[in-house]
């Protein structure tokens, strides 16, 4: 920098001066923006203060109240607009899950809210809304770091997690966690690549069609074990069969057998019946 500055003073109109000026201007604008713009949440689990509650309520009124009612008491169907369920007592975990995975705000009325990759709120805004909803009535809280810490998970824990998963989750989410169909267009989503926090929150809140698995029936340690099995799956359970075909079971295997297998047989039969040139 000093060298650039001396160069500038030595030759007043150095050809690189414009470039340097633009760069400086960009740094200035960026710095100003960073100072003024909302900061990403650093202390998301900190107790919410009155400002956060107020901000959360404003965000709620602007984005959620149309369906969920002005006091989060649940909406009524007016002029064909959809009714949302009451949010009193759903807890902070529910808000963090629904908004953090992009399921809410609902894009359109359909069988179920899909996971959306583009999240329209910062984590701080989500936390403010969560704090507001949690202030209405007690409900499941956003899980802390202790239950999401996978560093001291043992192979035994992973095995136990897999066992609990097979009994409690696999009937909907598939034995490999790849998801599956429910009735009327609803489905259990694919769990690959889902953050541990959201898996935990889904278990304690029971979003949409999913039932609730509270900590009294599946303990936090067992939930950690399930998440460990789901998120460390690649390391502990790759495909011994060599060709998993998405681990969807008879659907993809049948498709391959019918199209490729029978296709090969048909091709061979046609070739057998052809006259040789």
């Amino acid at each position, binding site marked *: 920098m000093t060298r650039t500055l001396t160069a500038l003073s030595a030759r007043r109109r150095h050809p690189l001066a414009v470039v340097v000026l633009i760069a400086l201007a960009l740094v200035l604008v960026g710095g100003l923006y960073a100072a003024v713009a909302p900061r990403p949440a650093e202390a998301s689990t900190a107790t919410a203060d009155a400002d956060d509650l107020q901000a959360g309520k404003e965000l709620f009124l602007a984005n959620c109240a149309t369906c969920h009612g002005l006091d989060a008491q649940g909406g009524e169907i007016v002029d064909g607009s959809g009714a949302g369920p009451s949010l009193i007592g759903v807890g902070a975990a529910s808000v963090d899950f629904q908004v953090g995975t992009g399921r809410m705000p609902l894009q359109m009325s359909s069988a179920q809210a899909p996971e959306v990759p583009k999240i329209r709120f910062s984590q701080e805004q989500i936390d403010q809304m969560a704090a507001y909803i949690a202030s209405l009535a007690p409900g499941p809280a956003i899980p802390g770091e202790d239950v999401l810490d996978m560093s001291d998970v043992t192979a035994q824990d992973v095995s136990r997690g897999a066992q609990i998963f097979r*009994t409690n989750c696999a009937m909907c989410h598939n034995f490999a966690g790849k998801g599956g169909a*429910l*009735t009327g267009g609803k489905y259990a989503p694919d769990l690959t690549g889902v953050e541990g926090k959201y898996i935990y929150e889904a278990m304690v809140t029971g979003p*949409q069609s999913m039932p*609730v698995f*509270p900590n009294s*029936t599946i303990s936090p340690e067992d939930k950690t074990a399930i998440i460990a099995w789901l998120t460390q799956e690649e390391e502990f359970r790759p*495909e011994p069969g*060599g060709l998993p075909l998405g681990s969807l079971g008879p659907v993809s295997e049948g498709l391959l057998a019918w199209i490729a297998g029978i296709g090969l047989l048909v091709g061979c039969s046609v070739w057998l019946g052809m006259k*040789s040139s």
Partner: protein
Amino acid sequence: MSEIERADEAHGQGSTALAKSGSGVPERFENPGLPPHRHRMGDVDPQAAKRAERQVAFMLLLSVLGSIGIIVSIIGIEYNGGWDRISTSTRAIGLCMFVSLFMLGVGAVHWAKTLMPDDERIDYRHRQRGTTAEREQAVAILKEGSAEAGLGRRPLIRNTLIGALALFPLPAVFFFRDTGPLPGNSLSVTMWEEGTYLVKDPTGGRIRAADLTYGTVVHVMPEGIDELEEPLNEKAKSAVLLMRLDEDLLTPKSAEWGVDGTVAYSKICTHMGCPVALYEQQTHHLLCPCHQSTFDVTQDCKVIFGPANRPLPQLPIRVDAEGYLQASSGFHEAVGPSFWERG
């Protein structure tokens, strides 16, 4: 006269002269015969024959390589304790097996199609009926044999023979009887009885009724099932799904058999015995993953869709003095699919 003749003479035998009737449509069609034989490239060009020979040899050689590949994959890819090696080994063995067998077949077919003689031959049918002399001889042999056996003259032997043959299959009934114990009433009853505690599956531990929030599902087994001699047989019958929903949604009978909206239903589908465990918390429907039978918990698990034809049996539950859930009686009917005695 040989009944097989070279078809070359038959080629082009079709007659062009058709017996015409007045209307212009022939009265009968003449046998058009075989189309003229077309020679293959290999039949006329020694170069092409040589080329086909090399192709067949190449395919068979691929098969040889595939077979060697199977051996190499089995010996060469050693198991090092990691799953990735098993995956690689499975893939390599499978691929080599395919090449080995498929190229053997393809080579054989290509050989037959390109190099082996392909002229058509005619194999005329002969009469099925033997000559009169042959038929008379056969009848004579039968009559002679019957006379020599003397069954007609010796009724004692005939009757004991019939008796011996009739009784011969009878021991099989007793063999089958010994293949296993009769099921008895094991299909009709489960381990559940009055006072059996509900425990979580698979982690164990009794369930406190007050711990269950609305929308909660718990997969449940009877307490002490793992100490049984055959726990898996019992688990296949005794699995229960515990759900908590708003008590007002339940039928009166269903609510009475539950505790504050917590109800326990058999998890064994009444169609084919799959575990019915896909509980949709919002619609209160239970879905069987095997054949999509759907049960409505708010209508006492009545079948609302699919091939099952009986509702899921409900397990009556109550709480003990400390608030833990236990069965207030066993199932009132047999769980799972229909069987002969159940009707």
